[in-house]
């Protein structure tokens, strides 16, 4: 047995560990306090953006959601798709042509990224399709969009 450690030093070490723990515990509480409360972390509320019956195939409705531009579009099979108009390359707003989008393309003006009317990247630098929103159709045809939960 090593007798070089004095009683004082040994007891000091013994006390130091729980003391450090006791001092560190409030730090954990402080960290939890600083982290935003759950109510700050909710996704934005679902938003009604239009009615499916007002749209013909390849008609679209632009709208703002979650502090970003977005749109919904009706396909020729009658499906509704929705996605943000935020380019997946560097975050510019993608330009959408006026009117019906049948056979047209969405263009990002910053670096020439191309997307088809469903938001799929078809040319230029964008690495992935535009980010989709979840779409729900109410019984009366109202289109409700919301953030797609991971």
């Amino acid at each position: 047995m090593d007798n070089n450690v004095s009683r004082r030093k040994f007891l000091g070490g013994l006390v130091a560990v729980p003391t450090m723990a006791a001092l560190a515990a409030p730090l954990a509480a402080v960290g939890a306090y600083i982290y935003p409360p759950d109510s700050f972390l909710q996704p934005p509320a679902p938003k009604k953006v239009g009615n499916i019956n007002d749209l013909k195939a390849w008609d679209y409705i632009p709208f703002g959601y979650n502090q970003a531009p977005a749109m919904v579009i009706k396909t020729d099979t009658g499906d509704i798709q929705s996605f943000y108009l935020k380019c997946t390359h560097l975050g510019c707003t993608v330009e959408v042509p006026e009117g019906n989008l049948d056979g047209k393309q969405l263009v990002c003006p910053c670096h020439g990224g191309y997307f088809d009317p469903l938001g799929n990247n078809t040319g230029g630098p964008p690495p992935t399709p535009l980010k989709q929103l979840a779409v729900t159709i109410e019984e009366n045809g109202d289109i409700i969009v919301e953030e797609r939960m991971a």
Partner: protein
Amino acid sequence: MKWIEERLPGIGKVAKDVAEHPVPSHTLNVFYCLGGLTLIAFIVQVVTGVFLAMYYKPTPEAAYASVQMITNEVRFGSMMRSIHHWAANFMVIFCFLHMLRVYYTGSFKKPREMNWVAGSFLFILTIVMAFTGYILPYEQLSYWGAVIGVETAGSLPVVGEMAKIMMQGGITVSPEMLSRFYVLHVLVLPAITIAFLVAHFVMIRVQGISDPM
């Protein structure tokens, strides 16, 4: 430690002097701890106050809701608010009892008159910080408490009306009142208090603790 000593020679000795300063044996007594307890309460107020200020919003529309939010939604928020509330109460009580001890033991006498005056200012600052903090939750009690304080100031001769307008931020109670009390509570008064505390402690070190009765 050696690294610092190499760059600031003598710092170790200064730190040792500050940390290991002996006190007279007659002060090893709970009544001589009251000033230190007041200081601890003040430090607790500074720390918890900084955290409360992260979420508090000093406008009439948002103040009450933000305090409710701290209490009910922020993790450990009700604990942080309770500590701030209770340490405030204890700071006033400890400060008052410390003053009583100094008065009872005659410690305010020559050569310590200036420190008694500095301490008196610290007592006033403590009361004013407690009063300005009282309005911040902006509930009924806060609002009418502030109105009473303003009216009391307004009853002073000569300067009363002026003081009232300065506190209210207008000729009647206005939304400006909350901003004024808030900035006093979190910025102006603590800064003045810290300056007085430093003076208070420097004078204690220079003059030493008073002799026993």
